[in-house]
């Protein structure tokens, strides 16, 4: 009995995991093989939902959405990892007011992403929004655009807003990793006359590579699950003209319908979710593998 007592201790966690993660996950895969509007009898359709999404009338919307997720990932990587590294270096170098800057950088992170989306929708309003008003006030009227209404501006705007909110997180993670760098190495390099840039590039960056890899994988997973910011700023249609549509909004539209769409299909929606899982799962495995390797390395 004593030997297996630890099993009892994991029961609560296993129960919670089963009810809130495993069951919904397995049931959604199961549901993806049915035509079901959310109530009443389910009709088994085999792989028809996947066929509709990958090769049928949903294909253009699906390809567009997944491409947007990929673009979102690339740009959000560039706009968060690189500035994150830069500002972390600045803070690591011990500039004046470092603590204040840490607070300033991290502050947007404590605001809910939906609230951020709502606030920026107001700020970006073409008639009475603060951003266009400022641009006009400083003589840049030509730069005042309907940011969330034009195809070429809407998606970059959403990516920019998301990165504005998340940047502080990357700075703090990089800063924490930099603090872990052996100070003797840095001091020795300084004594040898190495420039700060050289120290950063040759000593600190190599130390940060595992962190960069971890953040890149996490960013990939988060990006392919993105929904809230697009929904808050452009609604479930991912407008204008689908230019901000991502897999999350596509799923929402299909599964729940609502204003602006007559599509309602839990089975079809579950198939989209399963495809998202198929994209994210291998990357998640890679993440777990890398973390394991790092833990082993430290052990």
């Amino acid at each position, binding site marked *: 009995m004593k030997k297996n007592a630890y099993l009892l201790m994991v029961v609560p966690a296993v129960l919670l995991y089963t009810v809130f993660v495993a069951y919904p996950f397995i049931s959604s895969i199961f549901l993806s093989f049915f035509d079901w*509007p*959310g*109530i*009443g*009898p389910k009709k088994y359709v085999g792989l028809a939902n996947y066929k509709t999404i990958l090769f049928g*009338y949903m294909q253009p919307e699906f390809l567009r959405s997944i491409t947007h997720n990929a673009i979102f990932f690339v740009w959000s990587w560039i706009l968060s990892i690189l500035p994150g590294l830069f500002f972390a270096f600045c803070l690591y170098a011990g500039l004046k007011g470092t603590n204040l800057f840490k607070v300033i950088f991290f502050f947007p992170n404590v605001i809910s992403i939906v609230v951020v989306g709502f606030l920026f929708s107001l700020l*970006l*309003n*073409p*008639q009475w929004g603060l951003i*266009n008003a400022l641009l006009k006030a400083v003589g840049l009227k030509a730069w005042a*655009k*309907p*940011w*969330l*209404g*034009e*195809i070429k501006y809407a998606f970059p705007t959403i990516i920019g807003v998301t990165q504005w909110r998340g940047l502080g997180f990357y700075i703090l993670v990089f800063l924490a990793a930099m603090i872990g760098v052996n100070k003797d190495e840095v001091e020795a390099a300084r004594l040898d006359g190495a420039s700060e840039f050289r120290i950063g590039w040759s000593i600190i960056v190599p130390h940060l590579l595992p962190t960069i890899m971890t953040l890149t994988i996490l960013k990939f997973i988060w990006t392919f699950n993105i929904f809230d910011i697009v929904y808050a700023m*452009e*609604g*479930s*249609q991912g*407008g*204008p*003209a*689908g230019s901000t549509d991502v897999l999350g909004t596509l799923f929402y539209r299909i599964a*729940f*319908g*609502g*204003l*602006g*769409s*007559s*599509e*309602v299909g839990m089975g079809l929606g579950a198939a989209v979710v399963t495809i998202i899982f198929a994209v994210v799962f291998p990357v998640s495995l890679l993440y777990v593998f890398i973390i394991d390797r790092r833990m082993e390395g430290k052990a």
Partner: protein
Amino acid sequence: MKKFAAAALLALSLLSFAAAEDKVTIWGWRPQDADLWTKVQSAMQAQGTKVTIDYKTYLATEYDSKLFVSLQSGSGPDIFYTRRLPSASRTQALIDGKYIVPLNGKVNLKNFTDVTLSFISENGKTWGVPFANQVIGIFYNSDLFKKYNLKEPSTWPELLQVCETLKKNGVTPIFASNKDAWTLAMQNAMVSVSYPGEAWLGKLTKGQAKFTDPEYVEMLTALNDLKKYYQEGFSANSAAEQDVAFSMGQAGMVFGGIFQNSNWLKTNPDFKFGYFPVPSKTKAVTPKVYVYMDGSYGLYSGSKNQAAALKVLNFAATPAFGKIFSETTGEITAMKGVAMPASKPFLQECYQYANTQASAYRYWVGSPFDAGKPSVYDLLSENMQSMYLGVLTPVDFAKKIQDGVSTWYPAFKK
């Protein structure tokens, strides 16, 4: 003493049973109806019907999911709001799952027109008591029209003339809400009943006309050309922003629905506005009005309180209810023969239009074109945005709709 206590207990339990029997729970997606049900309860009680109504409201986008879960677990409300047929596959699912009761013979529906009932009927069975008819078209700022001596236009050239006058005087002629794609689908649909017109729509419905016909492409071109009269940056404005701008006098007109009037009056209680149907191309075609039934009250098959629920539904089918509905919500009751409140002349006008000039054919909500996938609704929403943004020509737009609908619409597949 024991006998007395037992008798008292029995009486109490009978009383509580009776009280529970008369309590009717109603679920809906319209928060503006809370006062309505309070007034209905008072009116029914004044007539001697002992009934209490408990109305719960949920976000429109979450309503169906919550209702479905509760119905399947057997804990659903006695009465629930249902969406119209045939486009609402959710209502069809309730019928298929036997969660909703047909009301034929249970509720007297003589106060509704056949057209209104057709939105919630199928194979001779009626599945709900309709509550509102929505009228969509062009609403205008009465003060601005008066100030610039403008008259309600009845042809498209006259509409352009009104726009031109407003623009010359520094007033935004039309405030558009292009960020919300559904409003563009609605705009397209309301224009179609007058331009190219009801007769063409009739042919389209029967498969004798196509979206790629010159008449339809011409309509799309006319709409696209209208954007020069929209506000600067119109592509990024939402329906909520349109409501505020219009009611605060920042624009002369909007393409909208009567359902928006409560928002306008909430923002500006002194706001005065009028309505006219979308003008036709020429005087030879009579402008029509896009009217659709907005929703109805359905009866849950698992209700343990059906007798009381039916009393409420029967009351909801009387002109007395229609009057309370329109006075309280500021919307048009789905019933015929109800006097609209004198304090709301715009309601009287729209109600009159709904009963005399409604188009018999349509391709947006409540139409056969909304019963399959991809629906005209979905195709219009996104492609209207594309056309206004200049990435899709009216010709390509028309082809996209035709190609999309042709994949499933029976009359196009022949």
